[in-house]
């Protein structure tokens, strides 16, 4: 790293504090990257859709991309902190060799951060594009979701209605979300999809569940008194079970 050094010193990389920083940089990058990724992945819910797996791998990539920068800052801080400390009520003597600028260092820093920024943008754009295309899937199951204080109502294509969400595994779904009173936010936690429910408008989001099991649907926008309790279950079942549930449920609706 050239940023800390004066241009007139030809062998800046041989200085002891630079060597120390370089070693610390490698160590810090590895530690920060590893701990950062593990912290996120271990705490995050097990993915139940490709969307959520995508979010997790995105966090992995971004953490590893940020680790060298954070690692360099940490390494330089550690080097500085472990040398030349001065305690007392009066300041230490001023160092005699002082630089107040380094065009090479600053331009390198800016170029590197611009590239990292570009990388993050492109990674994001690719996923956005994929998510936008998913909304247009003609074969997807179309589900209407209505939020109200403080429960969710799910309407299925055949007229069935429920408070829990039932879906078949490995089948794309498009949710059309709205609200009858205030803003809510429709969040299937393990599938990594979320869209606000706005009164008077219909918003859309899409997902393909890829695991059978019971998952969480929570409201993610403060919606009044019982916001904390506005949650329900998402049951992902096999296609056969789904069809059976749907027909029974539709009949029950009609019978009622």
């Amino acid at each position, binding site marked *: 790293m050239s940023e800390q050094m004066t241009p007139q010193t030809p062998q800046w990389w041989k200085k002891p504090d630079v060597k120390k920083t370089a070693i610390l940089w490698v160590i810090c990058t590895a530690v920060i990257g590893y701990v950062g990724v593990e*912290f996120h992945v271990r705490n995050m819910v097990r993915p139940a859709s490709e969307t959520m797996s995508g*979010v997790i791998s*995105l966090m992995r990539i971004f953490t590893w991309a940020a680790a060298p920068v954070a690692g360099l800052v940490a390494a*330089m801080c550690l080097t*500085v902190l472990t040398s*030349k400390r001065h305690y007392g009520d009066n300041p*230490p003597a001023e*160092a005699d060799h002082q630089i107040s600028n380094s065009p090479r260092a600053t331009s390198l820093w800016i170029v590197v951060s611009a590239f990292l920024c570009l990388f993050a943008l492109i990674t994001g754009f690719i996923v956005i594009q994929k998510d936008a295309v998913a909304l247009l899937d003609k074969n997807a199951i179309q589900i209407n979701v209505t939020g109200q204080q403080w429960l969710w109502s799910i309407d299925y294509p055949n007229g069935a209605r429920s408070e829990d969400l039932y879906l078949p595994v490995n089948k794309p779904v498009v949710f059309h979300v709205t609200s009858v*009173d*205030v803003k809510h936010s429709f969040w299937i936690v393990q599938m990594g999809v979320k869209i606000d429910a706005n009164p008077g408008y219909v918003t859309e989001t899409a997902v393909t569940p890829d695991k059978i099991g019971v998952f969480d649907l929570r409201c993610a926008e403060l919606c009044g008194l019982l916001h904390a309790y506005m949650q329900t279950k998402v049951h992902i079942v096999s296609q056969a079970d789904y069809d059976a549930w749907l027909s029974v449920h539709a009949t029950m609706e009609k019978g009622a």
Partner: protein
Amino acid sequence: MTTVMSKPVSAPGKSIVEKLNFFTALALGAISAIVVWRLALQILPEDTEVRLFTREDKITLLSMTAWFIGFMTGIGALVGPFRWLMGKDLTHEENMFLAGKDMGVKRYFRYTTDHKVVGIQYLVITMVIFGIGGILAMLIRTNLGTPEGGWIHPQAYNSIVGTHGIIMIVGTIIMVTGPFGNFIMPIMIGARDMAFPRLNALSFWLIVAAAVPLIWAQFIGGISTGWSAYNPLAGQGPLGMDGYIMFICIFAISTMVAGANITTTVVKMRAKGMTWNRTPIFIYGVVASVALALPAFPVFFLSQILSAFDRALDTSFYNTAGGGSGWLYENLFWIMGHPEVYVILIPAVAALMEMAPVFTRRPLFSFNVAVMGIAGISGLSVLVWAHHMYISGWAPLLNTPFMLTTELISIPTGMIFLVLIGTLWRGRLWMTMPLMSIFALLWNFMIGGVTGIYLSDVPADAFLHGSMYVTAHFHYTLMGAGLTGALAALVYWFPAMTGRMFDKKLSWIAFWMVQIGFNIAFVGMFAVGLAGQPRRVEAYAPTFNTGNMITTGGAYLIMAGMLVLLYGVITSWTSGVKAPKNPWQAKTLEWTVGYPVPLENFDVLPVVTSDPYGYGKAKS
């Protein structure tokens, strides 16, 4: 208000401005509010159609407005404008009185125009605000100690969350530009006072006037919507929302007034020779902050005026059924809301950049890059607001451009890191609490910044938005970076403001307790956010219990640290070691005037011949 103005001056020789103080203001505000409240009860017709609150909203808003006008009249804010209407102005004696000459403690309870008095007033009110906001935070964390919540009623809990949010936002907005921007900044640039001393007093007393509607709101239903007060939830909310509206409107005026004043002062009143590249970096931070507030807060003001219309006059700006849209509110709110986080952050970081050369005894690394960083963040921050609305459904097609602008902010932010780390590199560290705060800032702001990049990414935000992860992220930036800078600024400028050194041992104890507690608390909060706990909930699934326990424990440690700090402030202020003239041997002008600072700061205005970072230059 004219009743007071037109009252003949009874005691000859005693001007009206000498009779008005905080207590006449309280009295007049209370009387006005009660009178208008009774009148409104009598005069306003009953609602014809069935609609919750409309008449009550009118009465509440009118009474609060009456309080506001009564208070500002009682403090003396209208004496000057009234004289102007009469074609006159304040006399020289009155101006000297207002400046607080030879008045002792009493000047802190008056409409005093001296910038040093205003700075101390801001410091005290900031501490009061943090005290109240901190107590509310402890209530929240205590309630979240167990999954079922329970001992606070959900309505009260929601109100505590909303009040904690808005009061801390206001506290952090004023925490650097208020005390240090007013007390230190004019001396630092070599000016005798602010450009508009009376506006300075106005901006402070407006905050005091604003506080009362916020307290009032707690007794009429509270602020049950979180600090963002999204419509239509706010429209449905209790009468306390009127207190929120009034609070924001008055505070927005205060911020605009302060912004115009500080900007003018810095542009027009710098000492001779203080060119832009000799102006200390802290001044850039303060100006960037208040200049950002200038476009942002009028929009906040507007958003709340429309809210008030919807509530009291039955309009439907935010009501979809009536042709409006909640998305309009969200846009107006975040057009203020995102610049606002940089209003908080920039001056705190700039204060640490100001301290870095002092405590490493070397020049600020790359002054120009520091200025570029501040300018870049300020410029971009007005173009990113809709990243708060990625998943609102308002305009999915705009997510991409807003993601672009948001992630671009990482470049100027990186410049700030470069300046700080470049200044520390090979510096001779003078181990003090402000110096360690720079390291703490780098640590906390790195975490806050990188998690910000995850949140700026639309697909990741679809998972993270509205979860505790967001709450932890912005606490890392506003508290971990912002408050850290403000506390360092307090210790650093304490000798200049009080004439005494801040107790060294207590500053270290408080520093470590707050920083460790902070990192425990908000790492725990990141964890539960990733696991799927939504924000602003008063109860949660049992799986989140461990993380919440950790956060609550950390929060108690922060509180203990802040109490140590408060104890340090009180003991050091009253009986600390007397400070030498320039205890840190810094090269900026505020250390040349000594303590107590003379009324007009400088007998002879200084002339500046170099930048204030020339450490070690003489020897090269």
